[in-house]
């Protein structure tokens, strides 16, 4: 239907693109003077943190910028068509889904829940006058190609009947229906579990080679790019600060920011193994299950979140729980924090059964740090109130003493005193996470339970927080229980690792040993899926 692009001509080309967005009180230049050129079969990685303008660039290519956005460029073409001069109708008819297709970060929500996948696949062709039979044949062909099992049978099923990975495969198939020359993948794996991530990236690579298309891969994760992109473009605040062959950029980053990005990737640490301390937490064959209903009237289902888990946490060590979402690691943390009671098994805190440890004593022993720095702070309280709250609840000290202690902890966690009366909404994500750490520290607990402490933060901030935690651990002789899906974090921080899957312990061992020689298949898949540099 659309003529094959001339081999000599680049698939997509942008010269001097500027995108400005209206914001309260003026305009924001989301992309400034960007130029790029992309040949068939080539993969360009665009990397940057949120707000760097990488997504805006992609949306500009599709003509899908939010209303009110202004686009200026010397030249912008996809598959030989000049996007700048095209109307929305023309863009719809000729570019979107035809010359250029796009897949998005969230496979769970990118399919319309009320229509079957068959309809959503075929309409990409039928809406432009193709026969349904042709479209169906093509769709089944592509579903086979992207590796969806039983495409014929599942053709009339609805999105909610597929897993996240499967949905991303369906979305890739959908993007390829009209054989576009360019595929833009905006964070295609961020929302997926690590083991699935690798599969999807490999699938993209395979499709690119099989179909001869050009790919723009947008990500915040340098790791993703190292194996899958030919060239890399690094963006910061709307500007391209560095561009070049992937290996070259990784090996010899030119720009300070690029260097920081690469450096901030967690590295294996070289901490001497901690001395054998006393056992602070002993967990014996703990199980936990939930009965729940999806709606008020769906049947009751039982989910076994944790099955027969046993481990010991000794004073001074850092133990990491690794697993994908639903592996039961967060449930474990909740049980330790006294937020729920186990259905079976025993948990002993410092030698006492957790059920007989009074709440307030337990609070002195261990404190949590949560994942989401937006949700973990009460937006109606000022920073000092938040940090002081544990002292208020435990009724420790006088007003002045509490304020004194608050200031001390703030200093410890690197929070400037000017934040004392600030509210969470006035702070950045990293600063908030520091507040959360300060709150956890103010009672001088011996154990900190860190539930995904960095996964909601930008990469460069992640590194700062991890460094802070490392420093505090040393200075305060903290015992850390780390819960994460990020193996990089594990390698940097943990002494010991426990790998979990479906509520059960798959493998446990010292970090270095486990990374070097995993014994279980699952652990191997997990490790392999992490894009090492």
């Amino acid at each position, binding site marked *: 239907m659309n003529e094959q692009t001339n081999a000599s001509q680049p698939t997509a080309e942008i010269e001097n693109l500027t995108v400005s967005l209206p914001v309260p009180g003026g305009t924001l230049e989301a992309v400034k003077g960007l130029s790029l050129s992309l040949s068939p079969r080539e993969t360009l990685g665009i990397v940057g943190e949120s*707000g760097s303008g990488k997504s805006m660039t992609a949306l500009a290519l599709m003509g899908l910028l939010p209303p009110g956005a202004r686009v200026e460029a010397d030249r912008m073409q996809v598959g030989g068509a000049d996007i700048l001069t095209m109307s929305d109708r023309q863009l719809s008819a000729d570019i979107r889904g035809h010359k250029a297709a796009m897949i998005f970060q969230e496979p769970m929500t990118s399919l319309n829940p009320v229509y079957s996948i068959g309809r959503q696949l075929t309409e990409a062709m039928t809406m432009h006058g193709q026969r349904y039979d042709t479209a169906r044949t093509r769709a089944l062909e592509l579903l086979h190609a992207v590796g969806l099992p039983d495409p014929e049978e599942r053709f009339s099923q609805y999105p909610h009947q597929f897993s996240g990975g499967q949905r991303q495969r369906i979305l890739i198939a959908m993007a390829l229906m009209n054989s576009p020359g360019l595929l833009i993948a905006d964070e295609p794996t961020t929302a997926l579990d690590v083991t699935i991530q690798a599969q999807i990236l490999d699938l993209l690579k395979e499709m690119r080679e099989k179909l001869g298309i050009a790919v723009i891969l947008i990500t915040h994760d340098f790791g993703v790019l190292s194996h899958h992109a030919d060239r890399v473009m690094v963006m910061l605040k709307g500007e391209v600060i560095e561009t070049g062959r992937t290996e070259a950029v990784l090996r010899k980053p030119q720009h300070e920011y690029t260097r920081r990005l690469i450096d901030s990737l967690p590295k294996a640490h070289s901490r001497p193994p901690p001395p054998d301390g006393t056992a602070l937490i002993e967990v014996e064959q703990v199980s936990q299950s939930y009965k729940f209903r999806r709606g008020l009237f769906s049947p009751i289902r039982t989910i076994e979140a944790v099955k027969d888990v046993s481990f010991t946490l000794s004073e001074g060590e850092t133990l990491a729980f690794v697993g994908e979402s639903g592996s039961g690691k967060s449930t474990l943390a909740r049980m330790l924090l006294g937020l729920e009671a186990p259905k079976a098994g025993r948990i002993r805190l410092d030698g006492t059964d957790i059920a007989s440890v009074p709440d307030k004593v337990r609070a002195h022993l261990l*404190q949590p740090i949560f994942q989401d720095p937006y949700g973990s702070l009460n937006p109606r309280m000022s920073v000092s109130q938040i940090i002081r709250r544990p002292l208020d609840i435990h009724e420790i000290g006088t007003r002045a003493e509490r304020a004194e202690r608050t200031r001390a902890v703030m200093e410890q966690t690197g929070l400037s005193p000017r934040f004392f009366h600030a509210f969470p909404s006035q702070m950045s994500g990293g600063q908030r996470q520091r507040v959360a750490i300060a709150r956890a520290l103010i009672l001088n607990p011996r154990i900190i339970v860190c539930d995904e402490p960095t996964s909601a933060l930008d990469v460069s901030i992640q590194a700062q927080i991890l460094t802070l935690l490392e420093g505090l651990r040393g200075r305060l002789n903290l015992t850390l229980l780390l819960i994460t899906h990020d193996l990089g974090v594990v390698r940097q921080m943990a002494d010991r690792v426990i790998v979990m899957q479906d509520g059960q312990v798959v493998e446990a061992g010292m970090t270095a040993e486990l990374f070097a020689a995993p014994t279980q298949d699952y652990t191997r898949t997990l490790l392999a899926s992490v894009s090492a540099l």
Partner: protein
Amino acid sequence: MSAVDLDLEGEPPLRATLRRMRHHKGIVFGGVVVVIFMLLAVFAPLLTPYDYATQNIANRMVPPVWAGGNWTHPFGTDHLGRDYLARLLYGTRISVIVGVGASTIGCCIGVTLGLAAGYWGGRVDRFVSFLLACQLAMPTILLAMALVFIIGPSTLVVICVVGVLHWNLFLVVTRAATMRVREMEFVQASRALGASPMPIITHDVLPNVTSHIIVIYTFEFGKAILAEATLSFLGVGVPAPAPSWGLMIAEGRNALFFQPWLVIIPGAALFLLVIAVNLMGDGLRDVTAPEARQ
């Protein structure tokens, strides 16, 4: 789409909300109108020399100024020669008192149940949900009529009946907000600190659902005013000779085609007050929404 990371000069949430309120046309308009009505209600005796109940049947049905009347009775007089402006002004008191009283009663019931259901969940939630299902199914107007009829009409009875029958929105919103807040990590942090439920509800949950409650309160305020007017109109509300606007409309109904102002004036007052209240509610929702979204 990727967020536009603007390093806005931060300000505390309350001040930010107040600033947004000052710049919200709906709130400003609604607020000004509501305040004017409140002032009229409070200072009614100073604004008119007439009493709302004193009749002068030799001087009935005087048209208002714009319909050929005179300035002695700017809004004219009713079928008993009572000054219509005086009745309207004193009627504001009834509307405001009923609005405040009924929505406060509804608020107390709904918020209490909502907090309990949202915080404890499980059986408590199921019980409260069942109560809600029953309450929603109750034909409110009919039940209110029956109740007022049985107990006997008076302003207090109307306030209580309307209040007792209008708590579902408070419940629904408080429950949903509480459930959401409850799952937020700062609540879990407090629980991990060993705090007992009451301090968590008062310190962590309530401040974060207050904005929703205020929004609902505004809407229910308007609804209660309309409910009172409707009951009075149907003859089972505030008893005569109290100058309830609904009653004034009912009394003016006979003259609708010939002295339409008797119906139009109280109707317009009712409309203006309720629309102002609702505009405030809409505005407050707009203004507090950004925080709710975070």
